[in-house]
C-alpha cells in the first residue's frame, strides 16, 4: 500500500481531494458512524425493512405449502429461484474483483470503493445462498447437500456440478468474509480510539482485536492481505465458472456450451460493477462523500462497464455463431428462432438492449461523467443482467427437443415477493453497514496520500528522498525492502 504518485503524462490526478489531511479522511469516514443518521437513511431503511417482511411472509408460505406456490412447472423446473441465485452471485463478483484483482494490479483508485464493494459481495452472496436453500422442497433435510452423515448412509455424488457449486459458493462466502474483516481491523481500531461512548469502545474494541498499528503487525498483515488477494483472484473466476457448469454439463440446447465459464464470469463482473455504482451513487449523495469518491473513480468504473459490456456482447454473438456453425438443428432452432422470436422474445430484448446497446453511451466523456446518466444506466444494466439469466434458464427450458413437451412459464406473486424480499435483505444489511462500519478503507486511503511518502515529505533533504524514489523505480533498490 505504498504512496501513489499521479503521472501527469497519463492524465492522472490525485486520488483524494488535494489539500486533505489524514485527519480529514478519518473525520469524513468515521463521522458517518458517529452522528445521527440523515433522514435519507431512515427512508431507505424503512423501505428495505418492509421488503424483509415481504420476504419472510413469502418464504413462510413457501415452507408451509411447498414449491408449488412458485410458477415452476413442467417443462420449466428452474425459473426465478435459480435466476435470482445466479444474479446475486454475479453481483458479488465485482466486490472481489475490486478488492483482489485491482489490488494485485496496484490500481490505487480502488481504495475509495473497495470496502463498499466487499460489503456488497457478502450481502449479495447471502441473498444468493438463500435460493438453493429454499428451492429444495423439503427444507428440513437441506443438510443432505453437505457431506455429512445422514440417515440414508449415503454421501453426495461428487461428480455432480451441483455439489461443486455448493463448495464453490460456500468457499467464496467464507473467503470474502475473511478478506473483508481483515481489511476492517485497522479501521475498527480507529473507531475504537475515537469512541464517544463506553458501548462503542467495547464493541469496536472487541472487533478490532487490540490492533495497535504496530509495524511488526502491519508486515504480517500486508502479506496476509496480499495472499488473500492472490487466492481470491482464481477463486472468483472459479465460482462463476462452476455456476455455469450447472448448466453447461447438461444436454439442453442453450445450456450445453463451452463458452459458458468465461461468459458467466464476464457477465458477473459487468453486473457487479453496475450494482456497486448504483449503491455508491446513493451513498455518496446521502453521506456526502465527495472528498473521497471522486468523479474520477466513477468515470473509471464506467470505462470498466463499457469493457465488460463488450465482452458480454461478444459472448452473446458467439453463442449465435456457434449454434449456426455447429450445424446442430436443435442448437440452431434454439438460438436462431426460439430466443429472438420465441415466446420469450421480450426477455431477450431486455437482455440485449441494456447490456449491449446502452453502455455504448460511455464512449463519450460527457456521458461517462454525468451522474444522472450513470445512475440510470447502472440500474438498467442490473435489470438487463437479471434478464440474461432468465433468458438462459427459462427460454432454454421452455422448448427442448420434443414439441409435445413445450410449455410456457409464468411467475406467481410469491416468486415476485421472494425476489423483492431478497433485495430488501440486501439493502437492509447494506444500510446497517453504512451506518455502523467505516464505508471507506481509511488506512488504505491514507496510504495513497502524498503525506504518506516517508521519503519525500517533511524532509530536511528532499533531494535525497527523490533520489531514493528514483532508485526504487529503476530497480536499484528492492521495493519495500522485505
Amino acid at each position, binding site marked *: *500500500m505504498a504512496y501513489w504518485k499521479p503521472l501527469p503524462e497519463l492524465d492522472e490526478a490525485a486520488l483524494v481531494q488535494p489539500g486533505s*489531511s*489524514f485527519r480529514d479522511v*478519518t473525520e469524513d469516514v468515521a463521522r458517518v458512524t458517529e452522528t445521527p443518521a440523515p433522514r435519507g437513511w431512515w427512508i431507505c431503511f424503512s423501505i428495505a425493512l418492509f421488503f424483509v417482511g415481504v420476504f419472510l411472509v413469502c418464504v413462510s408460505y413457501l415452507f408451509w405449502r411447498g414449491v408449488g406456490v412458485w410458477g415452476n412447472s413442467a417443462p420449466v423446473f428452474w425459473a426465478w429461484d435459480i435466476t435470482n441465485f445466479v444474479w446475486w452471485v454475479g453481483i458479488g463478483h465485482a466486490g472481489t474483483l475490486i478488492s483482489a484483482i485491482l489490488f494485485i494490479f496496484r490500481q490505487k483508485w480502488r481504495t475509495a470503493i473497495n470496502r463498499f464493494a466487499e460489503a456488497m459481495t457478502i450481502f449479495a452472496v447471502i441473498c444468493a445462498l438463500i435460493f438453493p436453500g429454499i428451492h429444495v422442497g423439503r427444507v428440513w433435510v437441506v443438510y443432505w447437500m453437505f457431506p455429512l452423515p445422514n440417515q440414508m448412509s*449415503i*454421501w453426495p*455424488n*461428487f*461428480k455432480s456440478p451441483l455439489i*461443486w457449486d455448493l*463448495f*464453490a459458493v460456500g*468457499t467464496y462466502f467464507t*473467503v470474502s468474509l*475473511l478478506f473483508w*474483516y*481483515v481489511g476492517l481491523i*485497522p479501521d475498527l*481500531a*480507529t473507531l*475504537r*480510539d*475515537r469512541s464517544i461512548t463506553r458501548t462503542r469502545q467495547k464493541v469496536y*474494541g*472487541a472487533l478490532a*482485536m*487490540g490492533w*495497535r*498499528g*504496530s*509495524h*511488526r*503487525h*502491519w*508486515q*504480517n*498483515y*500486508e*502479506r*496476509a492481505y496480499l*495472499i*488473500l488477494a492472490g*487466492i481470491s483472484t*482464481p*477463486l472468483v473466476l*472459479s465460482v462463476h465458472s462452476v455456476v455455469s457448469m450447472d448448466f453447461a454439463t447438461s444436454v439442453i440446447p442453450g445450456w450445453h456450451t463451452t463458452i459458458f465459464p468465461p461468459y458467466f464470469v464476464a457477465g458477473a463482473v459487468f453486473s457487479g460493477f453496475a450494482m456497486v455504482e448504483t449503491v455508491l451513487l446513493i451513498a455518496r449523495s446521502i453521506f456526502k462523500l465527495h472528498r473521497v469518491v471522486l468523479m474520477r473513480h466513477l468515470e473509471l468504473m464506467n470505462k470498466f462497464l463499457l469493457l465488460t459490456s463488450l465482452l458480454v456482447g461478444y459472448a452473446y454473438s458467439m453463442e449465435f455463431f456457434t449454434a449456426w456453425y455447429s450445424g446442430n438443428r436443435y442448437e440452431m432452432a434454439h438460438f436462431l428462432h426460439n430466443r429472438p422470436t420465441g415466446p420469450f422474445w421480450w426477455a431477450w430484448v431486455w437482455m440485449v438492449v441494456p447490456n449491449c446497446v446502452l453502455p455504448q453511451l460511455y464512449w463519450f466523456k460527457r456521458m461517462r461523467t454525468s451522474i444522472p446518466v450513470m445512475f440510470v444506466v447502472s440500474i438498467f444494466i442490473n435489470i438487463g443482467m437479471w434478464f440474461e439469466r432468465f433468458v438462459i434458464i427459462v427460454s432454454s427450458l421452455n422448448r427442448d427437443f420434443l414439441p409435445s413437451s413445450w410449455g410456457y412459464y409464468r411467475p406467481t406473486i410469491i416468486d415476485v415477493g421472494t425476489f423483492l424480499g431478497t433485495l430488501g435483505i440486501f439493502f437492509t444489511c447494506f444500510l446497517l453497514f453504512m451506518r455502523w462500519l467505516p464505508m471507506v478503507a*481509511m*488506512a488504505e486511503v*491514507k*496510504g495513497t496520500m502524498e*503525506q*504518506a*511518502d*516517508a*521519503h519525500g*515529505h*517533511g524532509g530536511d533533504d528532499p533531494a535525497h528522498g527523490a533520489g531514493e524514489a528514483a532508485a526504487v523505480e529503476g530497480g536499484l533498490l528492492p521495493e*519495500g*525492502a*522485505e
Partner: protein
Amino acid sequence: MEAKARTAPKGVPAVVLAEFESAHDVLHAAERVRDAGYKAWDAHTPFPIHGMDRAMGLTDSKVGWIVICGALTGLTGAFVMMHWMNGVDYPIIVGDKPGGAPGTIPSMVPIMFELTVLLSAFGAVFGMLHLNRLPRHHHPVFESERFRGASDDRFFISIEASDPKFDLDKTVALLEGTHAAHVEVIEEEEP
C-alpha cells in the same frame, strides 16, 4: 519539541513512547533506534509506511509458510474425502467409473481447488493473527491518551523495558534526540 512528560511514579517503567507528526520523521527515528541495537521495540502507524521494514531491520514475514501448509492440507483433504466417500464407503458408479478411480479425477478438480483456497485463506488470516499474537486487548501503549492518534494521523515508536539495552535515561534521550514531538514513559504497577 515539548518537554518530556512523565506520569507520576506508580511502579516500574514498561514502555517509552515517542510521538511523531509525519511518516518521514518516524521512519528516520526508526533507523536511529535500529542502529542503537534495540530489539523489543515497535513503530505504530495509522497505515503501513513504505520502507519501514528496512528502517526497522525486519526479516521477511512468515505468513506464507502457514498458507502453504493450509493449501496442501486442503488439496489432499479434498481428494481423500471424495475418494473415501464415493469410492470406498459407499461407491457411486457413474459412467462405469467408481468414485475415486483415476477416470473420476477430473470431476474432483473443482472441489480440490475450492478446499485448497479455503484452507489457504484460513492459514492467511489465522496465521497472521497468530504471528501477531492478536487478539490482545491489554498492552501498555494503550495506557497513553495520546496513543489514540496512532489510528488517526499520528506516528509512534515504543521501546519496551524488557529490551536488554533498555536504560530509562538513555532510551528517553535517544528518542528525544530524534524529531519526536513528545516523549512519555508509561509505567505499570509492580507485579
